[in-house]
C-alpha cells in the first residue's frame, strides 16, 4: 500500500462501509460492536496512520485529513444512529416494558401499635391542646389516696361501687380502683393552681369479667383546679373533647349522679352517632351513649390536696379508654382488647 491516493481511497471506502452498516444496525448492542469494528484499535481505519511513514512529508497532512474525515464521519453516524435508536426505544417503552400494574402489591411485614395506645394518645393530644399536662403515678396505692382522701371513709356504702383488690389484711395497700388518687397526688405535686392535668392509666376492680366488665382496665381522668371554674366550664370542656374525638356535630349531656369525690356529680353522655340523638337500636333508643363520670371537685378533696376550697373550685371527669375504643371501632366485647388475638388487633 502506498501513495496518498490509495490512502484517501481506502479511508473513503471504510467510511462508506461503516455508514452503511451503522444505518442498518437495529439496536444499541449492534452499534457497540460496529464501534469496535470500525473505530477500535485493531480496526482497519486505525491501521491507516501506520502507512503515513511511507509518505512524503508534504503528503502527510492530506493523508491526515482523509483519515480524520473518515473517522469523524463514522463517529457522527454512530452518535446519530444511537440517538435514533434511543428515541425509538423510549417511544416503545410503554409496550416493551409493560407490567401488570393491577397485580397485588407486596406490603412489608410490619406490626402496629395497640388500639388502646393509639386512643390514649389521641385523648392526650386533644387535652394537651387545651393546656393539660399528662401525669402518671402508682397503680399499687394506699387507702388514703384511693379512698380516704377522696371523701370515701371506711365503711362508706359507696365503697361498694368499687370492689377492691387488697394486698394486706388491714386493707391499706390496694390496687387503685380509679385514676382519681392522682387528683390528690397532682395537687400535692403542683401545689399552686391553675392545675390542669390528665391522668391515663391502668385501674383495677374486683368484678367478674364479661363482655362489658373487666377486672383490669384503663381510665383517663382530667382535673382542672382554678379560680372560678363552673359546671358550665366542665360541660364546655367535655363538649370540646367529644367534638374533637368524634366530630363537630356531636353533642353531650350531663345527668346528675353521685360520686363521693365530686359535688355536684354527673354522668356524661354522647349523642348517638348513628341516629344523631333521635334514638335508634345502636343507642338503645334514647339517643345517648353513656361515656363517663364527672363533677365539681368536692371541697373536702380540694382540702385533702392542700388547695383552699374557699378560693378555688375544680372539675374532674373520667372514662374508660376501652369505652372510647368501643364507640370508635364498633367493638362489642371489652375482653378483646386484652386477649390480643392478632386477627383482632390487625383490624384496628
Amino acid at each position, binding site marked *: 500500500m502506498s501513495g496518498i491516493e490509495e490512502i484517501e481511497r481506502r479511508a473513503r471506502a471504510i467510511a462508506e462501509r461503516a455508514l452503511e452498516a451503522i444505518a442498518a444496525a437495529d439496536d444499541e448492542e449492534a452499534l457497540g460492536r460496529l464501534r469496535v469494528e470500525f473505530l477500535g484499535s485493531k480496526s482497519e481505519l486505525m491501521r491507516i496512520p501506520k502507512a503515513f511513514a511511507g509518505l512524503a512529508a508534504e503528503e502527510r497532512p492530506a493523508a491526515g485529513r482523509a483519515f480524520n474525515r473518515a473517522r469523524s464521519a463514522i463517529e457522527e453516524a454512530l452518535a446519530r444512529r444511537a440517538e435514533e435508536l434511543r428515541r425509538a426505544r423510549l417511544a416503545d417503552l410503554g409496550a416493551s416494558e409493560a407490567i401488570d400494574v393491577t397485580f397485588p402489591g407486596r406490603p412489608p411485614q410490619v*406490626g402496629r401499635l395497640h388500639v388502646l395506645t393509639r386512643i390514649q394518645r389521641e385523648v392526650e393530644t386533644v387535652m394537651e391542646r387545651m393546656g393539660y399536662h399528662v401525669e402518671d403515678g402508682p397503680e399499687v396505692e394506699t387507702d388514703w389516696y384511693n379512698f380516704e382522701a377522696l371523701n370515701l371513709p371506711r*365503711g362508706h356504702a359507696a365503697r361498694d361501687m368499687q370492689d377492691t383488690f387488697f394486698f394486706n389484711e388491714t386493707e391499706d*395497700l390496694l390496687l387503685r380502683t380509679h385514676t382519681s388518687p392522682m387528683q390528690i397526688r397532682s395537687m400535692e405535686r403542683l401545689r399552686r393552681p*391553675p392545675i390542669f392535668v390528665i391522668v391515663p392509666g391502668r385501674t383495677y376492680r374486683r368484678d367478674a369479667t364479661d363482655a362489658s366488665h373487666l377486672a383490669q382496665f384503663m381510665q383517663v381522668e382530667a382535673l382542672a383546679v382554678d379560680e372560678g371554674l363552673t359546671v*358550665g366550664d366542665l*360541660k364546655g370542656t367535655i363538649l370540646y373533647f367529644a367534638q374533637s374525638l368524634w366530630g363537630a356535630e356531636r353533642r353531650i349531656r350531663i345527668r346528675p349522679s353521685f360520686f363521693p369525690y365530686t359535688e355536684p356529680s354527673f354522668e356524661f353522655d354522647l349523642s348517638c352517632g348513628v341516629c344523631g340523638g333521635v334514638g335508634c337500636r345502636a343507642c338503645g333508643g334514647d339517643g345517648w351513649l353513656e361515656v363517663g363520670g364527672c363533677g365539681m371537685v368536692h371541697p373536702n378533696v380540694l382540702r385533702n390536696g392542700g388547695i383552699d376550697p374557699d378560693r378555688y373550685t375544680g372539675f374532674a371527669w373520667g372514662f374508660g379508654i376501652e369505652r372510647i375504643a368501643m364507640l370508635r371501632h364498633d367493638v362489642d366485647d371489652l375482653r378483646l382488647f386484652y386477649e*390480643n388475638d392478632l386477627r383482632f388487633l390487625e383490624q384496628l
Partner: protein
Amino acid sequence: MRVSFEWLCDLAGVHDLAPDQVAEALTLAGFSVEEVRPVDLSGILVGRVLEQQPHPSSRTPLWIHRVDLGDHTRTIVAGASNATPGSLVPVALPGTRVPGGTLVRDGKIAGVPAQGMLCAEDELLISDDHSAIMLLDEGHPGQRLEELLPSDAWLEVEVTPNRPDCLGHLGLARELAAALGRELDRPFMPPFTGGVEPPGTDLVTVEIEAVDLCRRYIGAPISGVRVGPSPRWLRRRLYAAGVRPINNVVDVTNYVALEYGQPLHAFDLARIAGRTIVVRRARPGETLRCLDGETRRLSPDMLVIADAERAVAIAGVIGGEESGVTERTTDVLLEAANFDGVGVRAVSRTLRLRTEASSRFEKGLSPELALAGARRAAALLAQVAGGRVHVNWVDAYPRPQEPVRVRLRPEQVDALLGVHVPLQEMEDILRRLAFQVRVGEDGYWDVLPPVFRLDVRLPADVVEEVGRIYGYDRVPPTLPGGRRTSWLPAAPSRDRRLDPLRHALAGAGYTEVVTPAMVSAALLERLGLADRVMRVINPISDEQDAMRTALLPSLLQVAVLNRNRGRASVAVFEVARAYLALPGPPRQPEEPLRLGVLRTGLSGPEEGRAAFLELKGALERALDAIGPVQVDYERAHAVGYHPGRCARVRVCGRPLGVVGELHPETMACFDLGGRAVALEIDLEPVLAMDLRRRARPLPRFPAVERDLAVVVDEAVEAAALEATIRSAGGALLESARAYDEYRGAQVPGGRKSVTFTMVFRSPERTLTDAEVNALVERIRSALAGEHGAAFRA
C-alpha cells in the same frame, strides 16, 4: 330499685305522662332509669284447674291440665306440678304475647294438644320466679286477670348510695314532682299515732345497750290483729314492685318499706320473752334460726334484737323464725328502728346476706324516718288487719338527730353552676324538695334540708339540688378562660417519649399488645419469677392473683392464645410496668416501665440464631429511635432462657435486661412448639439518660474500607475480636463490625471464620493504601497474638 309506675304517679299526683316521659324526668333529675318494662296483662285470663295428670310418655316430667275458662275448657301442658285441681291460675291463650316476651302458640307437646299456657310469675313480670305456676287467691274462671292485677309498667331505677331516702316510692315521687315543677301534697310525717289503752309503754320495755350501733328503736304494740290475706290493692302494689304477698301483717311492713324506704319488722308479741326488747351485741356462741330457715352463728361484733332470753333478730338484716308472725298471731310488736349503716354493712358482709332491709340501712338512714314508717304501718295495720294500735309507743331515741342548717349566699349557686338562676326559682326548687329557706338580711340564706336528707351539709350540696332540678341542659357550655398567671411548660409524658420505640418495633414487624398486669402467682413460681412478687389477698381467680414481675409470661400467653386460634408464630411486644415488692412491711412497690418482645414459631437452631440476631438488631433500632444510646451484649445466664443463647443487654454500659432464645423447658411450660426468641429490658434508666442527639462535623476526607476474615477457635466471641481490632486500629479506625460467620471446607474443624468490615478514615487527610495496609497488618498481628487467629484471603 324496681318501681311501679302506677304507684309512683299516684303518689306524685302525676296522671298525664307516659312511662317513658316519667323515666326521662327521673333520669335528668339524677335517678337513672335503666329499664322501662310495660306489663300488659290484657290478654291473660283466670282459669280453674279441673284435673291434673302426669304426661304418660314424655321423658321430661310434664303435667296435663284440664282448665275451666268459664265458657269452655282446654287442655294445657305445663312443666310445673303445683297447679293442682281447684287452683286458680293465669292462662294465656294461643296468639297472646305474655309480658315476659313469649308468644303462646297452638300446638302439641309430646303428642298432647297444648291449647295455651299456664303462666309463672316471671312470664307476667311479677317476679323472677319460674319454678312454679303462679297461683291466684281470687277470681273466677274466664275473668280477665287485668281486673285483679291492672296493667302497669315498672321502672328499674338506679338510686345512688347518697340518696337512701329515695329507696321508696314516696321519695322518688317527691323528686318526680319537683322535676315537673309540682309539689307533693302529702306531708312527710303521717299524723296517725294510735288510740287504744293501755299505753304501749306498759306493754313492752325497750333497752338499747349498744347505743353506738342503734340510734333509735320504736316498738309499737298492736293487739287483736287478724292475720289473713291483704286486700287486693295492697297485694297488687306489692306485686308491681316485685314483692310476693305473704299475709296482711308482713305485707304492710313490706309495703311501708317500699313506700318510705324505712325497713320495718313485725314480731309476734306473745313470743317475745318477758315482753322486753334489748338491743345488744350478740353473745359468743349465740345462734339464731332466721326467717329464711337458716341457722346462723352470731359473733359479738354483730348487733341483735333480743328478748329477755335470746336473740330474736339480727338487727337491720333479718328476723328470727320463732318470733315471726304466723296465722295464729294476735298481738304484734311493730319495730321501726335506726341502725348504724357501717355496722349493718359489716354484718351483712360477714354473713354474706344482703336483704332489702340491710341494703337500705347500710346507706345510712335518718332516725326520723323510723317514726314516719311506724306511723304509716300502724295506721295500715289498723286498716287492713283490724289491729288496735296502743297509745304511747316505746321510743328509745337517746341522741335525737341534730337539725342541719346550711348557710350560703345565693350567688354561690350561680358561681358554681356558671348560669344565673333567678332567686325565686331557686327558692321554689328548694321548697318543692321539702327544704326550708330563710332569707337573711345580710344576703345569706339559711337553708334547712328536710330531716330525711342526711346528704346535704355543704353549700355545694345545696347547689347540686338547685342545679339538678333547674336542669343542667340549661347551663351553657363554656371553656375556662381566666387569665392564667402561672403554668406548667409543655413536656411529653414518659409514655409518649417511648412512642418512637414503639413505632420502630412496629416497623420491624412486631405488633404491640396490652396484657393484664395481674397474673398467676403459680405461673410466676414455675418460671422462677416469683422473687419480689406482690400477691393479692382477695383474688377473683388463681389465674390472676399476683402482680407480674416480668412481661415475658404475659407475652407467652398471647402466643398460646394465638396458637390455639391457628397462628403458630407471633411477633409481639409490650411496654408496661413490672411490679417489684420492696423489703420490709407491706408498702408500695417499684413499678418500673419495661419493654418485652417475643417472637415464636421458629424451627431449628439456625433459624433461632438468625431470629436472635434480628431481634438484637430490632432492639438497637428501637432504642436508637428514642435516643443515641450505645448497646452492647455479654454472654449471660437468665431464668427461662437457653443456656447457650442468652446475652445481657447493656445500654451505655448499664445492664438493663436480657435477650436470647427461650429455654426448651420454658416453651414446654406453655405447651408451645418450635423455638422462640425474646427480650425484656428496663426502660426507666434509658428515660433518665441524656437522649439528645448532637450533630458532628461531616467527614471531609474519604474513608477506606477493608474486610478481614479471621479464623479463630469456636469459643472466641465476636465482641472480643472487635475489642482487639478497635484497640489495635487506634484513632484512624472509624468502625469495625462483624458481618459474617463461616464454618466449612476452608476452615479447620473446631474453628470458625468471622468476617469484619473495617472503615478507616483520617479527619485531616486522605489515607494512602500503604498507611491502611500497615494498620491492617497491626490488627492482624494483634488478633493472632491475643486470639490465635489465622486469616483467610
